[in-house]
């Protein structure tokens, strides 16, 4: 397969010729000669020349993807004779993902088991090395679902230490701000809510779960979904370990383990990689809109005590984003005995300019006088990023399938204008547990398939407050797509949500897949970002170091490419390599090839913070994020 396939705009008729090249130096020269001929005949302008020079290397690019999901092992001679048998164990329920949804489901199942004096084996696998290490959120928690799960959460020591005392909303301009009154009834009103460090909350939930007898296995990632003969879900298999970077087995190679269950709950959070497979396998998205996303970047700062106002909640929209790019910021003053603030920036991933860098927007937002005033004299102690759902009601897929169901941010229950998804995620976990409990403890399996099908879960979710809540705010995010952009959206919210409470009979649509929203680079202007000053704003690499992220170096990169040639041929050629800018961890870099002309994509997989933005925003949808060896990834502490 020729590595110099060039699919640039009008040169597509050459693609057919190029595709028939075999992988050899002379073939590469043939490609270049063909393209140069076309170029000469069209009198290509400056840009074309630069672009073709970059997309045609005189050497074939090195192989990037070695992961077995793209390069199967059954045909690979290096794997001949390697024992591939897996140890299997049986549980009643297996839960993938130890976040608020997964843990709430586990806890509720064990509460019901104890109530009804039934034995129930609940196993939960989580890729983070300890509970909460991969959790990242603002966060302003609505305690409704928590109170349902543990009415005595306060006595149990749940880390909800900061009730919201002040709520501020601003529209930022470059140097000033326009305050917006938060009238009661508007979705961003936070009275009765708590500012939490969600990682600590998840750690606490984990402790409660263990006390109730849930088997928690942090450090083990669910890598594969297992199926019965009849096509229903049988369980999951954890990741293999000990595979070298080139895809060959090392001495310490060991197969993952199979966990079989009567029913498997998938709570992988926003854009889970197994959920992605399940959508295809069971056609779960045929009647809903594609999910739309945003990326959230966050830092924790220890600030000057004099500036610390515990319980103060600040949100902003506007600068530095233009009115057509959805996004905004949060800044929360925590009250946990030290002057700590959690702040962050969210950018909708339907942005159109490939030169936009969410990380650099975040860094420059901090220089706004209103924000810099709080941060001056402070010290940054943590950094992280994660994608979040914005599709809401319109994007909820089918939630159940034979042998399993989807909970939490994986299918996506975030209330976007409130910017809260934890309470709905927890409620979905609770409802899932309540729906499956009678079925898994029944004497006779009441199911047509070997894996239990529990459509009752979807039914109970539809008649719960989660559904009502998401339905009432369904039009706010899509209302943003109008000529007035942000301001149109705010006007719509004022009229139809605040006054009419979302009762309008129509449902607005989203724009489509986020990945398809990018305009070609030549139609857009590069953005001049200010240099980080090292006191308030920082460079990318020092930020990534603060996330504590690390992976075993000698393993296949878990950012897999379906086609290794697409990044240079399409992403770089047409969009100027947007992955260099939207990845908040510096995983993707276009570097010159070692010999000859041209660029190649370098994937620094060790930096990955598991945010999933690349899988979402890649305009070629060529990147497939799969799970690395368990235990790798960020080491967030109370993010």
């Amino acid at each position, binding site marked *: 397969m020729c590595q110099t396939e060039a699919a640039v705009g009008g040169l597509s008729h050459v693609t057919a010729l190029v595709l028939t090249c075999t992988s050899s130096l002379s073939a590469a020269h043939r490609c270049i000669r063909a393209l140069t001929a076309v170029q000469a005949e069209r009198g290509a302008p400056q840009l074309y020349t630069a672009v073709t020079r970059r997309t045609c290397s005189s050497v074939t690019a090195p192989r990037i993807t070695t992961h077995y999901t793209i390069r199967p092992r059954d045909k690979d001679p290096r794997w001949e004779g390697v024992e591939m048998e897996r140890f299997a*164990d049986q549980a009643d329920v297996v839960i993938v993902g130890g976040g608020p949804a997964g843990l709430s489901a586990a806890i509720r199942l064990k509460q019901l088991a104890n109530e009804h004096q039934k034995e129930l084996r609940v196993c939960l*696998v989580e890729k983070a*090395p300890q509970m909460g290490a991969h959790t990242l959120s603002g966060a302003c928690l609505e305690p409704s679902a928590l109170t349902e799960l543990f009415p005595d959460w306060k006595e149990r020591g749940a880390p909800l230490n900061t009730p919201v005392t002040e709520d501020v909303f601003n529209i930022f301009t470059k140097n000033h701000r326009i305050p917006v009154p938060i009238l009661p009834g508007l979705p961003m009103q936070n009275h009765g809510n708590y500012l939490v460090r969600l990682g600590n909350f998840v750690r606490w939930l984990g402790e409660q779960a263990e006390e109730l007898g849930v088997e928690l*296995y942090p450090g083990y990632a669910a890598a594969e979904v297992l199926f019965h003969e009849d096509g229903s879900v049988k369980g999951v298999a954890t990741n293999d370990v000990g595979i070298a970077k080139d895809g060959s087995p090392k001495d310490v190679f060991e197969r993952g383990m199979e966990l079989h269950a009567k029913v498997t709950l998938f709570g992988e959070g926003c854009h889970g990689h197994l959920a992605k497979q399940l959508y295809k396998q069971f056609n779960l998205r045929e009647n809903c809109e594609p999910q739309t996303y945003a990326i959230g970047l966050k830092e924790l700062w220890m600030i000057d005590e004099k500036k610390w106002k515990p319980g103060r909640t600040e949100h902003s929209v506007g600068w530095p984003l233009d009115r057509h790019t959805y996004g905004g910021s949060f800044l929360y003053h925590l009250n946990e005995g030290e002057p700590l603030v959690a702040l962050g920036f969210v950018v909708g991933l339907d942005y159109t300019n490939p030169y936009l860098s969410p990380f650099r927007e975040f860094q420059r937002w901090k220089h706004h006088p209103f924000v810099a005033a709080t941060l001056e004299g402070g010290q940054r*102690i943590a950094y992280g990023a994660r994608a979040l759902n914005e599709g809401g009601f319109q994007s909820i897929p089918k939630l159940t399938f034979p042998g399993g169901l989807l909970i939490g941010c994986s299918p996506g229950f975030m209330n976007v204008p409130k910017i809260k998804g934890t309470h709905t995620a927890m409620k979905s976990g609770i409802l899932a547990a309540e729906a499956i409990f009678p079925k898994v403890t029944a004497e006779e399996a009441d199911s047509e398939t070997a894996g239990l099908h529990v459509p009752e879960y979807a039914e109970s979710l539809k008649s719960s407050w989660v559904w009502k809540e998401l339905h009432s705010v369904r039009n706010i995010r899509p209302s943003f797509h109008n000529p007035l952009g942000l301001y149109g959206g705010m006007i719509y919210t004022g009229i139809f949500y605040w006054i009419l409470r979302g009762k309008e009979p129509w449902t607005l649509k989203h724009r489509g897949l986020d990945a398809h929203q990018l305009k070609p680079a030549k139609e857009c202007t590069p953005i001049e970002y200010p240099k980080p000053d090292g006191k308030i704003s920082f460079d990318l690499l020092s930020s990534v170091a603060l996330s*504590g992220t690390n992976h075993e170096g000698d393993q296949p990169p878990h950012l897999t490419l379906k086609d290794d040639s697409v990044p240079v041929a399409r992403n770089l050629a047409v969009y100027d390599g947007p992955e260099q800018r939207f990845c908040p961890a510096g995983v993707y870099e276009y570097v010159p090839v070692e010999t000859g002309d041209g660029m190649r994509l370098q994937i620094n997989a060790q930096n990955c913070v598991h945010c999933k933005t690349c899988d979402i925003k890649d305009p070629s949808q060529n990147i497939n994020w799969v799970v690395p060896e368990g235990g790798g990834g960020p*080491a967030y502490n109370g993010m």
Partner: protein
Amino acid sequence: MSGRVLVGVKRVIDYAVKIRVKPDHSGVVTDGVKHSMNPFCEIAVEEAVKLKEKKLMKEVVVVSCGPQQSQETIRTALAMGADRGIHVEVSGKDYETLGPLQVSKILAALAKKEDAQLIILGKQAIDDDCNQTGQMTAALLDWPQGTFASEVSLEKDGIKVVREIDGGLETIKISTPAVLTADLRLNTPRYATLPNIMKAKKKKIANVKPADLGVDLTSRLEVLRVDEPPQRQAGMKVETVDDLVSKLKDAGKV
């Protein structure tokens, strides 16, 4: 001959985490921070398990001194193949001042109690980089020591140890019982896989208090202050040697 190996493991802050000094400069922030088994201790456990698999030793007992969370570290060692664990409970102020002297006293006491034939430790812990526990334990027991081991072979008349030293590699032969400390190239530790973690939950971890072993935990050291290293100043490039000399004179260095 008991054929028993005692392996010491330490729970330390994970090597990839950026550490932060506490605001009161008394130490480093550990609350909620990701911890894992000291990398050299992993190598020590692997070596012990290998000896058992080669049938040169009969039982691997893993020990850790620390708070409740040290049990997780012991479980990981059990999942790697150790037979049973001993958790020596040290927490609070005692844990903050716990150092190589106290740990080596504990290990020496346990070695006698358990009738151990071999003690394998990591050469040093990555949090304090003391590189003292193995040596002190050997001294307290009056046993020979093979430190910085990159190769270990049990022979009829003793243990042959290849040591990594400043000048290169040194090969020594020591009699048993002995203390060994593991260096990086000794082996590649195996993963603690999930089925083994599940099995490890059934293996025994005994709880012991330092007082039961007759060990006094008082530290002879007092930490006065902990600071971050000074910020590295930007360097300067000069064009000629004369430039360099004049700049050095200006800075008062010459």
